[in-house]
């Protein structure tokens, strides 16, 4: 191996240093957020012989988003609230626990979290498992023993902040954010010291340059000019409760030393209370992980009027675009457009709809702005605006991250085929209570089905294949060097698909709807395994309350747009492992 090759290899290793082939040390497997594994034992030819080899009940009902980690023959699982952390010994028969960690978590977080008490997972770095508790704390736990090493309060429940996001660890910095776009928070990103948990920097997503950490000559957005954009794109003081939460996924390019993340919606949902673009809500931001300095930013949905959070992952890939090799960032926004961007500058190279979109006619890549259909603009004075596509669940939910295969050059993702009516109302901010101001019922999109699993060519901006599903699809994806993609469905099927054709090769009914993200890893015996959580929840805790059976004092009718989901699934909390 040449010295250059060694350096290149080191550059892609996680902060933990010693990630082995077949491990899964961070939420998206790698810093580029590809959710691609080079394991190839499972192929299109043999996937039909997959079988369950192990399962475990987490003891918790509720949305099991996120994914396990696998490091050094140990699998780590974080549950939804109360955020128990399990460590399974993969070297012993039956995978018994090595330890479990049961933190103290404030139960009031259950009423401050907008959309079920979910958690999006942990990060392994330097012998530590780092993750967020729902009530505004980050913890580091010794991977070997389960001992708590530090616990830092990062967020304020009384201001509507909760913390289901999975951290990213870069260069001894633990990067975290908070949810609360429905509670009028002042959204931020923080960098903690990995050794001590001390908060080293705080970068707000809206507000004055001094708080956004936008410095003259360093901050260069591709499409915007001028200073104080996080103030001048808002009415006076409104930005202070303007949302811009951080609840999705983060990625990192070690060559450019840039950390990428998306921000959520502006608050409230009624846009007439916040004239202007409302920067940097519904945006992608690129920062230096060491001190949080903002390098560039781009707003996908200026003056968002439809709750189109940009919290979805930013997948880093090297693609040919317009005949030229480019270092790009690919993002599937809630607003229905897939963006292929230059990740050094924030220039939009390709922006095409990946589902039916009618709020905008297209994205003008020269200006970076969507060409909005003014009849779909919402606001309290506009009454009930009918049939906006996609819904605020997103053309793709940020909760269900896509995967990218460098072998096929394609992106794989779960999508929703739904539209909404949007009736905005005036909202009043009362700390600790919701700050929303809209009623937004859904209906099925064109074709009548509610979701699909698709493959996308981000170099040209085209769908390559699609498998429709009767219900919205809300699981993440994983794709392998065996050219097999895995995803789960809301009605509780876990499926393997041919990555080149989309043909479903195998499926298994996992006991509850899947809203988590599958992973694949090498077991202690050298075989390839695939793991996924079953446990319907997240927004479906709110939208399909008839899948719940744990509270005799809360019995709800089915959702009108999805009357029979409870026929196929109910709440659960199961970790599954499959193999040949």
């Amino acid at each position: 191996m040449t010295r250059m090759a060694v350096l290149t290899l080191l550059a892609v290793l996680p902060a933990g240093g010693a990630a082995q082939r077949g491990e899964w040390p961070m939420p998206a497997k790698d810093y580029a957020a590809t959710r691609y594994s080079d394991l190839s034992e499972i192929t299109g030819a043999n996937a039909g012989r997959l079988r369950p080899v192990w399962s475990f009940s987490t003891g918790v009902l509720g949305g099991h988003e996120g994914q396990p980690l696998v490091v050094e023959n140990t699998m780590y699982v974080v549950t939804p609230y109360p955020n128990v952390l399990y460590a399974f010994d993969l070297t012993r028969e039956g995978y018994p626990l090595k330890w479990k960690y049961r933190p103290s978590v404030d139960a009031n977080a259950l009423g401050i979290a907008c959309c079920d008490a979910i958690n999006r997972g942990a990060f392994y770095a330097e012998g530590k498992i780092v993750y967020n508790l729902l009530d505004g704390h980050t913890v580091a736990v010794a991977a070997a023993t389960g001992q708590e090493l530090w616990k830092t309060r990062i967020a304020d429940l009384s201001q509507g902040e909760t913390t289901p996001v999975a951290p990213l660890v870069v260069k001894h910095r633990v990067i975290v954010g908070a949810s609360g776009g429905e509670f009028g928070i002042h959204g931020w990103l923080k960098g903690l010291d990995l050794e001590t948990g001390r908060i080293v920097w705080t970068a707000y997503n809206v507000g004055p340059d001094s708080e956004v950490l936008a410095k003259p000559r360093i901050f260069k957005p591709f499409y915007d000019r001028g200073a104080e954009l996080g103030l001048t794109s808002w009415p006076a003081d409104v930005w202070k409760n303007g949302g811009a939460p951080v609840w999705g996924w983060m990625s990192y390019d070690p060559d450019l030393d840039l950390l990428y993340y998306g921000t959520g919606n502006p608050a409230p949902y009624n846009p007439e209370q916040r004239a202007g673009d409302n920067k940097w809500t519904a945006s992608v931001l690129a920062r230096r992980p060491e001190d949080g300095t903002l390098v560039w930013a781009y707003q996908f949905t200026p003056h968002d009027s439809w709750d189109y959070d940009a919290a979805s992952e930013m997948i880093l890939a090297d693609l040919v675009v317009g005949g030229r090799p480019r270092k790009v960032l690919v993002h599937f926004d809630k607003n229905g457009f897939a963006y292929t961007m230059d990740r050094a500058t924030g220039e939009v190279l390709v922006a095409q709809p990946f589902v039916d979109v009618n709020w905008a006619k297209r994205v003008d890549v020269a200006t970076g702005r969507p060409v909005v259909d003014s009849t779909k603009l919402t606001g309290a004075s506009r009454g009930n605006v009918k049939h906006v596509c996609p819904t605020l669940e997103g053309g793709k939910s940020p909760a269900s991250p896509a995967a990218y295969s460098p072998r096929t050059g394609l992106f794989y993702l779960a999508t929703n085929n739904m539209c909404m009516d949007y009736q905005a109302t005036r909202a009043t901010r009362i700390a600790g209570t919701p700050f929303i101001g809209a009623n937004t019922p859904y209906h099925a999109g064109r074709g009548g089905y509610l979701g699909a699993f698709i493959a996308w060519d981000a170099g040209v901006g085209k769908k390559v294949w699609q498998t429709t599903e009767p219900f919205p699809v809300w699981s993440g994806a994983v794709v392998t060097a065996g050219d097999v993609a895995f995803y789960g469905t809301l009605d509780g099927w876990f499926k393997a698909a041919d990555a080149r054709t989309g043909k479903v090769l195998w499926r298994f009914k996992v006991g509850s709807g899947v809203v988590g993200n599958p992973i694949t890893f090498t077991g202690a015996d050298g075989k390839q395994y695939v793991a996924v959580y079953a446990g319907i929840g997240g927004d479906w805790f709110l939208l399909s309350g008839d899948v719940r059976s744990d509270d005799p004092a809360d019995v709800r009718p089915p959702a009108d747009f999805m009357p029979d989901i409870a026929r196929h699934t109910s709440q659960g909390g199961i970790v599954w492992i499959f193999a040949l």
Partner: protein
Amino acid sequence: MDLRPLMLALVVSAACGGHDAAPAMGHEARVFAGGVIPPAGAPQVSGNPFRGDRQSAAQGERTFGVMNCDGCHGGGAVGWVGPSLRDGRWRYGGSDGEIFQSIYYGQPHGMPAYGGLLPPGAIWKLVTYLQSLEPPANVPTQSWK
């Protein structure tokens, strides 16, 4: 070792410590709407003075929206991240006084206390609104064809 003398001493010292009455509310910490703690000692709870009054129910419905109750319990109180308040079933009791107390003091798991922001009359009108919602016929069976 016989612990009885020690136990007795603890009981006696506790009794002499001035804590002869149980605290008004023994509970987990609540969220306070707007950060305002309700005045100690809720008003003496008897029946709802507005029970069955349509105008009070309509005022309560407006308050349900203005105070962001619908953000958790859903428009029409059908249930969202918080429980349904129109299914005729109550986690913390459905009598006049019990509903009032839940709004005034809040409840565990994030139901904010509104007693610091809303005067008792406004809370009673909220109770009146919730009581005006016609619960569905209590058919516990959901079936499919």
